[in-house]
């Protein structure tokens, strides 16, 4: 069941900080229905598999505990597809400032 991830690997863990019933009184209804969750990254302290409860050492040397969810966690944010709704802006305003047209 799953590959062994070596101690010392750079990983991400997951914790529930406050379960759904224990949220702060002032949060809106939709938020109250879900837990407050946390993700943190650090170096795995002992060999483990994805889904195990593990300890990590963060870059500030703190030990945090949680469910192991990713190895070498990735940055997935990007620019994405061209947005056609923005394409007309450049040509349009260059025309206005170079010609007399408004």
């Amino acid at each position: 069941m799953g590959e062994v991830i070596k101690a010392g690997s750079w990983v991400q863990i997951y914790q529930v900080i406050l379960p759904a019933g224990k949220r702060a009184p002032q949060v809106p209804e939709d938020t109250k229905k879900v837990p407050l969750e946390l993700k943190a990254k650090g170096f795995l302290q002992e060999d483990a598999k994805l889904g195990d409860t593990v300890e990590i050492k963060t870059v500030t040397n703190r030990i945090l505990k949680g469910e192991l969810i990713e190895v070498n966690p990735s940055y997935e944010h990007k620019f994405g597809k061209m947005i056609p709704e923005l394409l007309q802006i450049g040509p349009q305003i260059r025309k206005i400032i170079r010609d007399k047209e408004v």
Partner: protein
Amino acid sequence: MAANDYGEVMARKNEIMKKAVGIDYERFATGKIGFDYERMMSEVGYKLDEIIKIQSETAVGKTPFIELKNITKLARKLAPEGKGARIFLKDEAANPSGSYKARRASVSVYHAQKEGYPGVVAATSGNYGAAVASQAVMRNLETIIVQEVFDSRGVGQPEILEKGRKCEAYGAEVLQLSVGPELFYTFLRVLEDTGYFNASLYTPFGIAGVEPLGYEIVEELKERENKEPDAVIITHAGGGNLTGTARGILKAGAKDTKIIASSVDLSGLHMASDHDFNRKSFTTGHTGFGVPFATWPDRADVPRNAARALRYMDEYVTVKQGEVFYITEALAQIEGMERGPAGNTSLAAAFDLAQKMDEDQIIVVQETEYTGAGKHPMAQLNFAKENGIDVRNGDPKEEKAGKSVIIPEHPSQIKAIDVDLDKLKLSYLSKVIEDTNVKEINQVDLEFLADEINKSKKATEEILKREFNLAVVGG
């Protein structure tokens, strides 16, 4: 375990905070409501010349000051004859971490180092995290940043994901949380656990750190154009950018410069809602922070917020998300500067306001911020589309936050909409009166409230009587 329940930790808030910022706020208390704001700023903070020196040690400030000639030209093409103020821009993206927030972080981090704290913690999903991390590595301190990043589906806001990556690039530990104000609870637990300094955005350190920005603008304009700015426009969220800049402008002697706040209109979206979280295309510079922080500054993570925007605001305007994306594209396409997007909120408003000002006047947009993957109009608009938002070209005044983002079809559709400042001031007074449960107002508090709402004592007294049936006693 009970000691770490939400309620238990929150009950220890004041004690934790006192240790983590080292400020005894009690000693600035005056009447039943007020506190001595100027004394707090001068005794806790640093003087302008000290700050300039502190910031020069870590490459903060003295950013390029640029006249946006093509955007000014565009505004003049749309303006009536003789109208169209010159638009200048302070390129704050040139700070080490890519935003004006380096100014705000610099003094806190300096102070933490001086006081012997081993590290700094900040609760922020914005550019401030990277700023703290960047300043802290220069001073060999550890950094922990606590961010609100993802909704209950585990989907992260792209702009915040990028800001988190940048914190990690500077060696910070980043704690990524799901939606909710209990971020503050996690933040308090980290402070307790580490004994690090609370690099709050709202201490006198954070606000005084911005003062040189306003000061530089006035000094540079005087040197280049032999005049003071007619208006300075500031993207407004928590109030620190506006407060610090305005104080710096006043310290440079520019008493007639109009201070204008500008926020993205996100009315209708609830900031603590798991559902609404990923339906906004701006994570800062918006009314969801701008209005509540103006009307109740002490909601911050310190007992007395040093950012008190209503004291300095002469006007407050809003613009739509689509309008800011348009002007962000324009800044790249005719000025050759790719910046933002959130920091361009004030530029969008300035573009419209300049058209109502005279040609020989000058309006200054006082910041830019770095841009990149995730933190870009393309990234935000793709994300909006994925989350069911109607993105289209049209008239931006029809935009409804959380439902649509409307990119103007023509630059003449960009309009800064006035916010009723008197209404905000009433809302502030109402909150203060409710919170302190006062039955009458003494002279010390009258003076405080008049300063808070930037009105004369006489006008304030009249409002208190008329709107709240509260009499002023003594005097």
